[in-house]
């Protein structure tokens, strides 16, 4: 018994303690949120009993569903555009030399470090200067700016590790440049393209600032809808919605990771 106790004591190393604290710091709020989403009380932080009603409520809330639809639409289109342009951009930068390449390379990743508020304001000013009306299309355009940079940076990090002779090998075996891109380079880059898209998708879904500056009235995305509601106090149905969002993004990430690992395992044969 005493022996067992000592063993237990020894096994709590400082690393484990540190990890525990870190996880607590990061995820305890999420746990609290999840617990409150099942709280029957609509106002206070006091626990008054378990209920599903908040979940049922928001699924019946037309405005939230519309906002969710808008968000998915914006993220979907922005990511689709970014996937194509971002991949081509990464490949172009890695494979070709042209005057001004260095400059372009450094500028193309700027959206990653420019504060969102600057992108938001500048896009708004720009759109107004051109007399372009604000709606979902303008959010998509603004989201493409940073989604593109994320896709491009993930794809180029994969390109760096790729054998530079792959396309030459394909051409050597009789593939035209287009064929070698489609048959060899694209499949080799696919895991990176998928993970870049996933990252961009989550960021686009998550964006409040840029969307609220660049969207016209009546076009709310999900973060905008949530934000407008919590200004009048946190409602339990928003808690429930947040839990669903966490679950969905967690699950989709896990799925993508599973697919990637599976593909990798197949290739490395473990």
């Amino acid at each position, binding site marked *: 018994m005493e022996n067992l106790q000592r063993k237990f004591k020894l096994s709590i190393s400082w690393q484990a303690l540190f990890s525990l604290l870190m996880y607590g710091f990061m995820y305890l709020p999420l746990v609290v949120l999840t617990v409150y989403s099942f709280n029957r009380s609509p106002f206070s932080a006091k626990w008054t009993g378990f209920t599903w009603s908040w979940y049922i409520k928001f699924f019946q809330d037309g405005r939230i569903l519309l906002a969710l639809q808008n968000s998915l639409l914006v993220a979907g289109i922005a990511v689709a555009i970014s996937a194509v342009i971002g991949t081509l951009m990464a490949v172009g930068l890695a494979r070709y030399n042209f005057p001004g390449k260095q400059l372009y390379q450094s500028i193309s990743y700027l959206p990653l470090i420019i504060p969102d508020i600057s992108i938001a304001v500048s896009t708004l000013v720009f759109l107004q200067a051109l007399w372009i009306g604000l709606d979902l299309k303008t959010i998509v355009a603004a989201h493409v700016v940073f989604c593109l940079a994320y896709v491009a940076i993930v794809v180029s990090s994969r390109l760096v590790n790729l*054998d530079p002779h792959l396309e030459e090998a394909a*051409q050597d*075996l009789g593939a035209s440049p287009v064929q070698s891109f489609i048959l*060899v380079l694209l499949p080799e880059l696919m895991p990176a393209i998928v993970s870049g898209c996933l990252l961009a998708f989550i960021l686009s879904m998550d964006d409040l600032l840029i969307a609220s500056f660049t969207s016209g009235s009546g076009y709310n995305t999900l973060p905008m809808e949530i934000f407008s509601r919590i200004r009048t106090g946190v409602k339990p149905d928003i808690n429930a919605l947040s839990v669903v969002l966490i679950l969905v993004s967690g699950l989709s990430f896990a799925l993508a990771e599973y697919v990637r690992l599976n593909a990798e395992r197949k*290739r490395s044969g473990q």
Partner: protein
Amino acid sequence: MSQAATQNQGAMATDAGLDVELRKVFKEFNREMAVQGIDLSIRRGEFFSILGPSGCGKTTTLRLIAGFELPSAGEVLIQNQSMNQVPPYRRPVNTVFQSYALFSHMTVWDNIAFGLRLKKQGKAAVQERVQEALKLVKMETFAHRYPAQLSGGQQQRVALARALVNRPTVLLLDEPLGALDLKLRKEMQMELSILHREVGLTFVMVTHDQEEAMSLSDRIAVMNHGKIEQIGSPKQIYDRPQTPFVADFIGDTNLFRGKVEGFHPAKLWVVTEHGLKMTAQPLESGKSAPVSGQVVLSIRPEKIRLSYRPSEGQVNCFEGRLKNVMYLGTHIHCVIELLSGDCVTIMQPNTVAKLPNADTPLYASWATEDCLALTV
């Protein structure tokens, strides 16, 4: 005599037919000349190596043949067809890359079938030829693995099969064994040689490993600074190097810089920088070497004899002391410091029971025909 031999060689060349020809080919990268006016004729069915130190332009030469680079000037011909306007995917050549460049998202089978499928071969034909290629490189049992699941040597075989299955006119090999460890390298050298005989194709290999080039090739081109220093059989290159670079790069040698003091049709008298008087063999007998011109003398370590007494009436005999000994198993490398201060390396079979100590006077000597005078 030598002229007749050259003519004879020329006649043979036309008989056999040329697979690859480079005519005055230049290649410039960013205002630097990687390849400077190369002329090459590679015969059908030949195992031809391009040998040289890194950065000498040998890989660029290979890429010019493959079509990955276009010449800045000059012409590349494959089977008498100019290739200057032909992109890599329409050239009748296939390349084995140093990094193998296997497609990691495809199985071994799909990798090998890649070229055939692009050429719209029927399913049955693809099946048959891939099987045949797998058999050729002894990889039948690995057909459904992915490249990452294979060892370096196995990947090398797949890369070979992927190129050979297309039955190219010329197979290009870019340092094919460079990434393998020594033992595997030796094994694959043997297999490459057997493969070459079996398939009967023209092989052009780029390597910096002189031993590899010597043991595999019918002919070797030695390159340095973007130029070809010498083309010849391994024996010609080793025994009759044309330039000091070739003598030094191929095998070990002792080089002495010197001035010609006098000459005779078959002999040259040279005084080296440190005042040693040597009798040497001119590069081409009959051709008069420039009197009081600068030459470099090359003597191979295995051609030097070592004795305790000076040999009577012998030319090229110099006194020295043993400075350093290196055991190489089958041979011993001795460094002898001559009285002049020059050091010569001598290779002796490992049969000497006892080595002299550092104070014993020793005499190193070599025959006139083993002392080659090379023009600088």
